[in-house]
């Protein structure tokens, strides 16, 4: 079972990193969205630094959600999902494997790109550590919640942005605590409470998401 689990993670990672895969475009989307903001709100450094945590978090959330649409869709369209469902692995474990691969292929690169963007947005240095910690705790939750949306919209033709409508409301608590953690750090307060809340959300998502997403995948096989 571990073998099959790792095989799926490996395959998805390979597909993501290969030419035209997800990783490159997710990071590009993240970077571009963030850099658009200074154009949108004007060049005042103070204002930009003030909204920096929010902008970073929203951009990360959008980048993760949008790339999630393909988490199961590509496999559904070419028939791979049928075969994956017929493998001896339970669907819940399959969902976990694919979500883990998604996070490794998109969440981690986002983390790597964040310091650069924090610099661009003049985020004060004392916020960086907490920002990274919060993203590290929050992005897996986003991947898991996104997996629910991606699975539930599978049967829908051209589900596309519908995923966003389903996932973003669920992701709002992650956003709130993520920003709260950074804001606390910027004001010199301890950020433990919001970080612990993020951890709690991650645990809840770990319990809930595989079940809900597996149910969605099972439903999609019927067509």
């Amino acid at each position, binding site marked *: 079972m571990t073998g099959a689990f790792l095989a799926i993670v490996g395959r998805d990672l390979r597909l993501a990193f290969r030419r035209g895969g997800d990783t490159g475009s997710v990071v590009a989307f993240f970077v571009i969205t963030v850099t658009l903001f200074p154009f949108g709100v004007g060049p005042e450094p103070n204002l930009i630094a003030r909204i920096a945590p929010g902008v970073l978090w929203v951009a990360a959330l959008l980048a993760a959600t949008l790339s999630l649409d393909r988490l199961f869709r590509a496999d559904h369209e070419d028939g791979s999902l049928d075969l994956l469902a017929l493998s001896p692995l339970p669907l819940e474990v399959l969902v976990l494997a694919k979500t883990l691969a998604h996070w490794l292929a998109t969440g981690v690169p986002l983390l790597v790109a964040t310091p650069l963007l924090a610099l661009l947005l003049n985020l004060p240095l004392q916020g960086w550590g907490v920002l990274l910690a919060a993203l590290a705790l929050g992005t897996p939750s986003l991947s898991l919640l996104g997996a629910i949306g991606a699975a539930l919209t599978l049967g829908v033709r051209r589900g596309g942005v519908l995923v966003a409508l389903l996932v973003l409301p669920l992701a709002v608590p992650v956003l709130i605590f993520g920003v709260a953690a950074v804001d606390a750090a910027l004001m010199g307060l301890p950020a433990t409470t919001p970080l612990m809340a993020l951890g709690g959300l991650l645990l809840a998502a770990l319990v809930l998401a595989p079940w809900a997403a597996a149910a969605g995948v099972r439903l999609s096989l*019927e067509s």
Partner: protein
Amino acid sequence: MVEGLACVRSERELFRDLSFRLGSGAALVLRGPNGAGKSSLLRVLAGLLPAAGGRVLWDGVDTTDRPGTFHRALCYVGHQDALKPTMTVAENLGFWAGLGGGGEVAPALRALGLAALASLPTGILSAGQRRRLNLARLVAAPSRLWLLDEPTVTLDSGALDRLTDLVRRHRDGGGIVVAATHADWNIGACDRLDLGAGP
């Protein structure tokens, strides 16, 4: 073994009270006009589509009770390819073989005449080559029950002979085959199931 199977799609009953039993070495060919429900029956047998009635037994056990064991004994080849265009031919097959607890890739590719293409990206294959690659799973991850949905489509005569040969040897080894096809495909003695007229 199948007992009183029924299937309803978009609220139309495709078949009802279908019962048959396949012993080791048996083959069942599904026939019927377009839309008769051949593909649907194969998906119900595989457990991809829930049956509207009846059940599918494998070694005497309901397959929905112990899907893991059943899935290990099963290889399903559908209309769709399940191939990733950016991965090479060998990588694609290797992944599915590994997942099915299967063996080596090279002999399987050779068995379908794809050995020369092993390191090409799958995206540039022709229709028949993709089909062959999909069928190579049968060799790479041996399993007792083969469910084949129009496997001969787009195959040239050479590949067709190889496939027929594979099916013969599989049955000689005690394997079971259920195949849907419109072509006259001679796989030796076999049962025939005619599904009623389409809509």
